[in-house]
């Protein structure tokens, strides 16, 4: 009994004490990173976490932070679990975070309405709520550089190119293997619209979250239907599972295309048979860029990174770097806009809206040619940037196409419909009150 009461007392005491952790020092900028190095999505999540962390740490080591202000980088483990993500959000909220990156659509959704209230911008890079591309409705949410509708239209355009024109798609059969969740279902309306117009047939193969690693039934149907092309919308272990099954069932790999989420590990899991697998991507792989070299020198070689050396520069690692590049650029912009050194979430929101990464700026950051230029504005929180197609050659990704522009009018139509829908459903959704800055 005494043991119980002691532990209980201890627990209550720690809870009260721990909940009021001292806020971070005034001369630093607090950047929390929501990461998942545990759980079913850790295989993808840890590389992204390493990339995000290492780029910011490199800025700390090389430049002493941003604008001379040190960044306090803190990881919070979410395990891709909404419960824990919301807990992380509550835990970091009191420490004046300048931005949050949920890295899960499930965690992003509850945070979207809170962002405006807590004055903490959300960066959900190419995931989350697609309608949040509309800055006039969602001033606090950013999802650059492309929406899933952009991605789908690019893939269809690429297939059309290969066949010799979009009109040649008539009579073809395209299979759509997707995670059976809002993430995977989002591009379906656009796909169906295009199928009606261009005359190709769409076959849907939903994969429920619990059988991501066991897709034999879906691939049995694929073998029966024999689609001319397969398009995949997956995350975590679903990607690797699909590539493995595709190899096993002898599906022609060069006709198997995916949105931007598989990584090297997924492709490797298919063995030699995975050669020819294609996916969209919008940034470079490898460590040839000066900024990546700086990460090697200042972070990895000093033992400050959790990534093993050969993983640095891989696709998902660099995806994390891109994410941190946007954070860093937004902070730098915010400092320029406000003239303050230590910026707040409100300032960084403005910094995010004035992001303008043109080739000259990228070169200055040591990332020349790393990614296509992107500029965000108060209205456009996405950019709708083109992406290129890359192919797995058995050991690495090879860029095989020029940047493919999305079908802008189609995407806009989807976006308008979604945003209108959202405004109708949420009658009380606040009008944008935030002023608009000129691009710096």
């Amino acid at each position, binding site marked *: 009994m005494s043991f119980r009461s002691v532990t209980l007392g201890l627990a209550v005491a720690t809870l009260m004490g721990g*909940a009021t952790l001292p806020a971070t020092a005034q001369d630093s900028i607090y950047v929390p990173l929501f990461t998942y*190095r545990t759980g079913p999505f850790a295989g993808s999540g840890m590389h992204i976490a390493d990339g995000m962390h290492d780029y910011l740490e490199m800025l700390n080591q090389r430049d002493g932070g941003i604008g001379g202000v040190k960044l306090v980088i803190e990881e919070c483990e979410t395990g891709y679990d*909404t419960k824990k993500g*919301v807990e992380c959000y509550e835990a970091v909220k009191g420490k004046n975070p300048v931005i949050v990156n949920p890295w899960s659509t499930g965690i992003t959704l509850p945070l979207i309405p809170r962002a405006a209230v807590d004055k903490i911008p959300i960066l959900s890079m190419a995931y989350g*709520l*697609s309608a949040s591309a509309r800055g006039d409705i969602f001033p606090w949410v950013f999802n650059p550089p492309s929406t899933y509708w952009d991605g789908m239209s690019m893939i269809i355009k690429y297939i059309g190119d290969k066949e010799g024109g979009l009109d040649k798609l008539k009579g073809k059969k395209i299979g759509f293997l997707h995670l059976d969740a809002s993430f995977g279902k989002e591009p379906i309306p656009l796909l169906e619209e295009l199928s009606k117009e261009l005359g190709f047939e769409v076959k849907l193969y939903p994969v429920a979250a*619990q059988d991501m690693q066991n897709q034999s039934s879906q691939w049995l149907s694929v073998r029966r239907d024999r689609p001319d092309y397969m398009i995949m919308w997956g995350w975590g272990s679903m990607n690797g599972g699909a590539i493995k099954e595709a190899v096993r069932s002898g599906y022609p790999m060069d006709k198997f295309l995916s949105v931007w989420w598989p990584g090297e590990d997924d492709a490797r899991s298919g063995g030699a048979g995975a050669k020819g697998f294609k996916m969209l991507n919008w940034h470079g792989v490898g460590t040839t860029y000066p900024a990546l070299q700086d990460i090697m020198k200042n972070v990895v070689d000093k033992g400050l990174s959790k990534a093993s050396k050969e993983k640095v520069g891989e696709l998902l690692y660099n995806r994390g770097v891109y994410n941190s590049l946007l954070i860093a650029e937004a902070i730098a912009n915010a400092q320029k806009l406000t003239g303050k050194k230590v910026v707040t979430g409100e300032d960084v929101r403005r910094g995010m809206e004035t992001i303008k990464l043109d080739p000259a700026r990228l070169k200055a950051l040591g990332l020349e040619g790393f990614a296509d230029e992107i500029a965000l504005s108060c209205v456009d929180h996405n950019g709708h940037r083109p992406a290129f197609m890359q192919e797995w050659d058995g050991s690495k990704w090879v860029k095989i196409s020029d940047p493919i522009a999305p079908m802008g009018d189609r995407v806009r139509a989807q976006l308008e419909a979604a945003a209108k*829908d959202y405004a109708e459903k949420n009658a009380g959704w606040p009008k944008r009150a935030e002023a608009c800055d000129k691009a710096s």
Partner: protein
Amino acid sequence: MLYREAGQFKTTYFSDMAVFRLREDRTGLAVVVVAAYGLAFVGTDFLLQAVLIPFLVFSLAAIGLNILTGYAGQLSLGTGAFMGVGAYSCYKLMTAFPDVNVIIWILVSGLFSAAVGALFGLPSLRIKGFYLAVATLAAQFFLQWCFIRVPWLVNYNVSGALDAPLRTVFSIPVVGATATSQARYIVVLTLVIALTWLASNLVRGRIGRMWIAVRDMDLAAELIGIRPLQTKLLAFAVSSYYCGVAGALMVFLWYGGAEYDVFNINQSFFILFMVIIGGLGSLIGSFFGAALIFIMPILLGIILPALLVPFGLSIGAETIEHLRFMIVGALIIFFLIVEPHGLARLWQIGKQKLLVWPFPY
């Protein structure tokens, strides 16, 4: 010494039948309730929003499952789905009739969950034990399938997710992003106290005794005149009602928006573990179980780094996560070995020992 029965005479039948027959129990409970309300005013946002609200929500769901599994003896793995029914029906009601007080809709949404629960409880008349668990597993998968597949449930929302529109009670926002954690906490706490009080009366009365009779031996129960179909279905309905209300509270007063995935099978297991560790057939055990399974990992996440910092050690977020898993796992095994009947039994033993302390006979 402080906790004794001596000298407290029951002079009426009413006082002899009271839930809390000891003055000390009553004052203790009053102190806990007052302290719980007091925390609304002194607790930080983190404490209220990330610790206490979820704890209360899970406690309510655990009470729901405890009614079914602990009192009526019907094993169920569909808790997560029944919570989902509550959340989705609350969303539909809230958006269809926006002017009605949201607390009414939270309480009414439980009725939908109860109806669905009773429907999936029908097989319980013929199948028992693990086989029934498998039948309720079907409810879990079927309902989860519905949440993804029926866009009507989310008002054809493109994102397929539930969102929490602004709703006020006495013109104080309690649902939606502008609601303070204080307001949310007070609403959740009040509902949980009210429903717990209802449950405690339910399980002590005629209905509760019927459930216990069916649990202990359904053949004998039938012979003494208890109709098993009605009794079991009532248990399913009441249990699902509690789970449904918990689900609505979870989405609208805790998360403030959610995807179908929060009502997956893991949620069902999570609550089943709370019930088993807390103590089957005990209401206070539901609270203990929720505390151990939900609050313990959060505490460890705060304590472990605090313990290591003085030694100059800093450990990564994921190491803490792994340590949390290991320690919570070990504690679960420890408690189940020390007391297989759950934390509630430990609590009971403690109270009995205290009654005769310091002179045990």
